[in-house]
Structure formats: C-alpha cells, structure tokens
C-alpha cells in the first residue's frame, strides 16, 4: 500500500474546531492517517487524540498516511491545517 507524509508549521493553535475538521476529513479516507507533533503521534481520525496533541502556533506538525488514498489524505489534511489554524477557534 502506498504511504505518504508531509509536514507543515502551524500558523495558529490547533483548537477544537480545526481539530474537528481535521478528524472529520481524515475519517473520510480509507487510509490509516496519523498526526505527529513533537514526540507524540495520534490517530488523525480521533478528534480527542488530535486535541490531546496540544499543538500550538509555530509548531511543526507531520501528517502521515498509509493506504490506497494516502496521498489524497495527506494533501487534504495539510490543507486543513494550513487554513484552519489561521482562523483559530
């Protein structure tokens, strides 16, 4: 199965609403998707896991996926992290 990974530097804190948007988007992909911030890696499909990262503005976050739609999943989640953390919430 193809694997894919990409990183982004957050422009805002990863609050509840962007974390929700991330987990909703991740849940629509067949691939297993994870998010890593610092030393912690969580299931991107778990909003509570993503919130538990406590990722903050300026932090480097990596999205990794493994599965048939891994590349699409990583692209979608990186886009959400880029947009949503600018808005906050």
């Amino acid at each position: 199965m193809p694997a894919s990974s990409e990183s982004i530097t957050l422009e805002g804190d990863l609050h509840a609403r962007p974390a929700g948007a991330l987990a909703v988007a991740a849940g629509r992909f067949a691939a297993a998707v994870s998010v890593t911030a610092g030393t912690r890696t969580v299931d991107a499909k778990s909003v509570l896991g993503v919130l538990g990262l406590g990722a903050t503005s300026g932090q480097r976050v990596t999205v990794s996926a493994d599965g048939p739609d891994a590349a699409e999943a990583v692209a979608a989640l990186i886009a959400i992290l880029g947009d949503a953390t600018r808005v906050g919430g």
Partner: protein
Amino acid sequence: MAQVAPQVGIVLVSHSARLAEGAADLAAQVGGGTVTVLAAGGTDDGGLGTSADKVARALARAETGAGVLVLPDLGSAVLTVRALLADLTGASVVLADAPFVEGAVAATVTAAAGADLTAVAKAAEEAWHARKL
C-alpha cells in the same frame, strides 16, 4: 456540503437542559455542523432531572436513516433511556457508556465523517482513554 448518505444522529440526555444544550452546541460545531445533535435535558417543567418524553422526541427527530447514538450524563438518565429503549422495537438506537462531553464530541466528529452506528458508538466509548494533558 450535501450528504449522499444519512448520518448517525446523536442525542444527549442530561439532568440539566443547559448542560445538554451546551454540549450539543459544542459537539455540533466541532463536528462541522452537518450532524444532527439534539439535547434532551431537564424535566418537562424545566427542572433538574430527565424526561422520557423529551428523550423520545429527540430520538425520533435524530433518526435520519443511519440510527441514533444516545449519551447519558449520570445514572438516572441511563435509567430513563433504558426504560424508553425497552419499549422501542425496531429502532436503531444505541446507548453509549462514555464521558458526556468528550463522548459527544468524538461521536459527532465520527458521524460527520460518515461512519456507521457501531463505529460512532465505539468512538464515544474510546473517549474514556483520551488524555487531555
């Protein structure tokens, strides 16, 4: 966004109308606003307690074809829901054993992603294991 398939609905049963409404509002917003999350809190006269009628109405409204997950806050809310479910034949309703706020948020987000009732219930119950710190 248009939904091609029905989503699991969520019903929050609390002793407090305001607690249920606040939790429903939070869960719905974190889930992106596509999932039906309904509050059934307080007694029929607005006091603290649970109302079988309020829960029954919420269950009916939350069902859009994919089933309904019910989250109770404390003990007697569980009793109210259980008594109601015993009389509901053929309904696709699952009572979740989950933390109220975290379970509601996790279930709503999972429902928003299009998961089935079993997966939505599992997401709620896995909320016991999510650390905040």
